[in-house]
């Protein structure tokens, strides 16, 4: 039976089975979770804050603005539109900054790896060569580490670049989109620079025109999507291996009663990868045995979980909202955290148990946690120190409860490269079958479900949307905590094809894939940009991302990063649907965000609270794109005679059946 958390109007019922199981145990009765705090706080969110019209950018205020009431503009005269736009722009800047700082660490780790200073090595040489070529680096007859070093240094330089040249990876976007960015003057230059400029322009008395503010908002977000996030994804792949399909398990049931449970929580996989290596070292295993444990059970939480899930098949115990529930099992010896999305409460929850919260990054400390600095240059010793600490706790484990049966099998690892391969094999790898089956209507389109989870709406939001989409023959791509949630719902099993509409099921069964494809962590949304670009390049679905029958959603979003992601999707031409945005207090700006942006970017934000309504909007938008592409009309089978084959070389027949050899492959 669902535990109803009363006293909170907007807080939804908990429906997540493992959460319910854990919270109903005796050992969890003193655990205070986000749900409890919502209740005990006893007040609903500030109306000005949630509608985006509280301005505290200078010390004349704070000013609460009421749109349409002449007396209620800011002391400086700022209107509701200006204030809401500035606030949103700052959210984007914060989100981008987070991805950027994460990416910077990855690039530095990459450089250290190329220099042989870490426990890692360059694994995906093919991808290294591809990226190096993009950056104009010579690859012929060169050692992989030498290439990697040059690539790493060039990548690092993009963060602080001061000239006005666009960042390198913009070149990967469809030509038409690049031209649009150029025309709008929003090609990102230095990655850090765009955040700085955004912060500057939202300072008191600088940019006070919301269209103009959002141009920089877009540029800042693009520097994240096509800049830092993409760099992070790609260099991490080169270093730790590009994900390939593999089986894994998710949910709290992955914790082991007879092993040292170490959960890795946060975002940067450098630490987690080192822990993975260290956990297999004989001395560590020996130590664990001595402590009476059968071994070390690493399990992921939040996006670190997704990183090691994708690349190593290491189980994910929990998404963001379950981080406290994981601790409430009493079965975790240590929760090792780095940056982003770590609730301060975890250290308090841990106090009920033998668990240590180990912070590892100088940038992210908290009271009541143990700090063991993770030194990349001495990664193995850092990792071992952390594990040793955890092992030391094993004997102290008291009563615990693991919902052992509550776990779900998943197939993960759907990088852009995996999708390319799985549709045609080594010799015919391409997106052609995806495009073909979208054109012929077996797949209506692609829906991305990304982002966090959040107490505000029902835990099942992701699942409801995903089920609705696949039932309507829309293929779902997922990242981040949304992906973890869909995995728990069983939709990442290949057998879940049975929940699809008939024609999507047929495609899933042909390929052997689940209808919901796990594409990675939240920085890996850059993979979706590449996948979308590849769909454009493959042909038959228009010549820009804005032509594709594809749409994204981040229901249950919590983090500022999700807003940055949303904006780089929109600026790249993809529509998004969110459950809320703090802009409703400004009429004109709200209108611009949810409609007017269409004219500028060919995409805009959509807002809907109910998951079913979100799904409905997604389906509707996809069908509109299909109509615009003219692929909703029944196409007759084209049979080729000699004349038509002769024309293949001239590319004259690119719009019929087999798509000839027109264009480079």
């Amino acid at each position, binding site marked *: 039976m669902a535990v109803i958390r009363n006293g909170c109007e907007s807080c939804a019922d908990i429906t997540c089975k493992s959460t319910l199981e854990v919270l109903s145990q005796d050992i969890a009765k003193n655990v205070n979770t986000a749900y409890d705090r919502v209740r005990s706080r006893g007040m609903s969110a500030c109306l000005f804050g949630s509608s985006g019209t509280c301005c505290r950018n200078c010390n004349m205020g704070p000013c609460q603005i009421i749109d349409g009431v002449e007396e209620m503009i800011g002391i400086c005269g700022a209107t509701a539109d200006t204030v809401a736009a500035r606030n949103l722009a700052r959210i984007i800047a914060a989100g981008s900054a987070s991805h950027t700082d994460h990416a910077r660490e990855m690039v530095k780790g990459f450089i250290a790896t190329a220099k042989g200073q870490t426990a890692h090595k360059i694994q995906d040489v093919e991808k290294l060569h591809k990226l190096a070529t993009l950056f104009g680096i010579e690859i012929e007859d060169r050692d992989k580490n030498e290439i990697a070093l040059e690539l790493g240094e060039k990548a690092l330089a993009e963060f602080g670049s001061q000239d006005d040249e666009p960042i390198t990876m913009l070149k990967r976007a469809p030509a038409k989109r690049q031209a649009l960015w150029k025309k709008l003057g929003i090609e990102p230059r230095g990655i850090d620079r765009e955040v700085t400029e955004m912060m500057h322009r939202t300072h008191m008395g600088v940019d006070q025109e919301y269209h103009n503010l959002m141009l920089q908002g877009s540029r800042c977000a693009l520097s994240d999507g096509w800049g830092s996030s993409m760099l992070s994804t790609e260099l991490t792949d080169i270093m730790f291996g590009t994900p390939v399909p593999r089986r894994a398990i998710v949910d709290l049931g992955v914790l082991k009663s007879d092993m040292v449970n170490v959960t890795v929580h946060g975002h940067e996989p450098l630490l987690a990868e080192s822990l993975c290596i260290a956990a297999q070292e004989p001395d560590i295993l020996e130590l664990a045995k001595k402590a009476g444990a059968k071994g070390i059970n690493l399990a992921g939480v939040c996006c670190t979980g997704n990183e090691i899930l994708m690349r190593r098949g290491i189980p994910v115990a929990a998404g963001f909202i379950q981080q406290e529930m994981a601790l409430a099992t009493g079965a975790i010896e240590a929760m090792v955290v780095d940056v982003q999305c770590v609730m301060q409460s975890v250290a308090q929850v841990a106090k009920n148990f033998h668990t240590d919260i180990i912070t590892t990054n100088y940038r992210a400390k908290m009271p009541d946690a143990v700090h063991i600095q993770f030194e990349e240059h001495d990664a193995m010793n850092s990792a071992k120190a952390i594990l040793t600490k955890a092992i030391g706790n094993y004997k102290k484990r008291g009563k615990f409860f693991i919902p052992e049966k509550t776990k779900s099998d998943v197939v993960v690892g759907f990088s852009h490269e995996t999708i390319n391969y799985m549709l045609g094999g080594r*010799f015919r790898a391409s997106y052609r079958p995806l495009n073909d089956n979208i054109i012929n209507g077996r797949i209506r389109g692609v829906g991305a479900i990304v982002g966090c989870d959040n107490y505000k709406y029902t835990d099942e939001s992701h699942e409801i949307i995903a089920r609705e989409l696949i039932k309507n023959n829309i293929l779902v791509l997922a990242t981040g905590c949304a992906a973890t949630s869909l995995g728990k719902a069983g939709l990442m099993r290949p057998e879940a094809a049975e929940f699809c509409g008939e024609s999507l099921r047929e495609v899933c069964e042909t390929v052997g894939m689940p209808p919901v494809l796990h594409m990675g962590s939240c920085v890996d949304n850059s993979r979706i940009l590449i996948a979308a670009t590849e769909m454009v390049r493959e042909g038959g679905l228009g010549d820009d991302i804005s032509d594709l029958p594809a749409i994204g959603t981040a229901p249950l979003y919590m983090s500022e990063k999700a807003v940055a992601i949303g904006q780089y999707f929109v600026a790249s031409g993809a529509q998004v649907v969110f459950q809320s945005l703090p802009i409703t207090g400004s009429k004109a700006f709200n209108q611009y965000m949810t409609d007017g942006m269409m004219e500028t970017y060919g995409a805009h934000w959509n807002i809907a609270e109910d998951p079913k309504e979100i799904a409905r909007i997604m389906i509707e938008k996809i069908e509109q794109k299909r109509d615009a592409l003219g692929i909703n009309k029944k196409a007759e089978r084209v049979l080729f005679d000699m004349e038509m084959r002769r024309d293949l070389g001239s590319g004259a027949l690119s719009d019929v059946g087999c798509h000839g050899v027109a264009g480079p492959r």
Partner: protein
Amino acid sequence: MSKIICSAAIRGAHKIIDMAEAKYEEAVKKYGPEQEVGFPNTAYFLPVIYSMLGAKVNNIGDMKDIFQECRKLLPPLVTDTMWLPYLAPALDAGMATFFAEEMFEAIRYLDDPGFYTKTEDPTGGNLWLGAADDVVFRKRGVEFVDGTAPGFAAIMGAPPTKEIASKIALELQEKNLYIFMHDHTDGVRMSEQLVANDVQVGWNTRLVPFGPTYTSAVFAIGFACRVALAFGGVKPGDYRGNLIYNKDRTFAFVMAFGPVSDEWYANAAGAINWGFPTISDFDIPEVLPTGICTYEHVVSNIPHDEIVQKAIEVRGLKVNVTKIDIPMAFGPAFEGERIRKDDLFMECGGGRTAGVEVLISKGMDEVHDGLVTVEGPDIKDIQQGQNLPIAILVEVAGREMQSDFEPILERQFHHLINYIQGIMHMGQRNIMWVRIGKAAVEKGFSFEHFGRVLHGKLHQEFGAIVDKIQVKIYTELPKVEEVQELARSVYEERDKRLGTMTDETEEVFYSCTLCQSFAPSHVCIITPERIGMCGAYNWLDGKASFNINPTGPNQPIEKGECLDPSLGVFKGINDFVSQASRGAVTDLACYSLMTSPMTACGCFEAIAAMLPQCNGIMVVNRDHTGMTPSGMKFTTLAGMAGGGAQTPGFMGVSKHYMTSPKLFMAEGGLERVVWLPKMMKEEIAEKLKERCAAIGKPELFDMIATEENGTTEEEILKFLKEKGHPALEMEAVM
């Protein structure tokens, strides 16, 4: 669902690779790694491996790396639950299957040299022909290039009865497809069913019994790979280019009869890489979503009377067949069929009786379209073995008709009459010869059917220039002699006109891009004195073809200013070639081997190559399989000259060009020719002697060496010195 198929394909691939690898290890022990191994007479090594991986398997030891590659490609078996995506692994497994089968078959050639006949037709009770060698491949390849054969059906197993087998074979033949037959169903083999039902099998009837086991399916795939290499200019190792080329251009499919084994699934999965789908008569799962093949990937449970139609629809092929209303089957697939003595009912012409065929143009009011008359006894009036004289007089009229087109239309008689199943036609003009088979007579053949065929097909192919066609057939001697007399004067007139036509007298040359469906960057230039290197299209053909289809593959080109009369460089030609080859070729010399020679698609009758030591040129025809003084066989030379690339010193030529006054003019003409295969020299002897006389050197004919005088440059040089060949005295070309 396709999980069953992919699981089976991967299982099958494991079995096949294990089997082939065991065979390989046995062979290493038996023969040692240095032992040479390969398919007969080919420059493409083991063609699937060569085209996909760029690897040349020359000896058994070379197979080691390929087996490693197979193992790398071979995925684990598909699990019952929580499977990983299996489509791509199954396709990879299918590819590895072909690599393994190719090596298996290559070892079979070594272990059991008599297993395959290595001929075009079955011999001495052995049905199994084995891999097509390069002679067969190039000859048949031309048909793929010019569209007379759009593709092939790779058959696995056999239909339930010989009658059904024959019917399906006939239907496929009528769609102009090649039929490659492999393996058996419950011990029954389709080739044997056909033979038992008196159907002629072999390359000539396009019913090719490749082998009795499933592993010979790799010969079909190897054939497709070579089409891309030889005609498409696809480079070895460019696997993607080769596969996409075949998907778009070679309309092949797998047709499977009866239960499908794991091994068949493995082969079918492999074929999907080339865009070749599988159509089965059995109740197996289907794979309908598209993307790798043009349309569906596996379609099953198709009744036998629909299977051919379904197959070409799934493959996305449109075959334009005009129904000719005669009781015998009709189509290009029957062109090569032979009427042997035992099958013969009667014959006309060919020295046995008088025979003549001629086409003339007349005024519009003099021709009654569709009129076909037979004067004299018809088949029904005679006994078996009673031969008759014959004259076929075709009279045509049309507003666009020109007397220049008469010989072109007339030349069609040969293949059009040959298209009739049970009829064999040879020669032309007054040396024509037709044999009427018993099978045709049983079906109700009448001489009138020749008229029906000529009327129908000439209308279809030349509708743009002829409006009316009437056919008069005579089988009484006086009438035949009358037509012979008329024909003689027509021939005389024609030859005179052709004889006076030179490259100088005509301002317009014709392009030929007929093969661009297969060789996208190649363009032929046809001049009055240099016919297409395929030997099939002369200047008049180009002219007629342009009249028939003004936007078609033959375009008139104003030759423009002559920039070099000896090389044969014309401004207009350069401009055209540059544009038509999309910039690949910017300069073209019509009469030179060494400077900007003409490119080739790959379907040339012969290849000319420079012999530097001899200071002369050798020419080798397609049918000569022996070594040449260049150190290369025809097949290797063909690789140098084909694929649309300009390679000075190597060039495709037609046999006809060998006796043209413009032959190698830039290099000194006929006097530069030092070596020809005996077969070719004899074939063109009469005209060659004429040319030698015409240039004032009748003794030259005997100075041209053949393989009897040697097959190395040293031997030839010695021979030339003995004979005092003029080439030795000429200016050095290299």
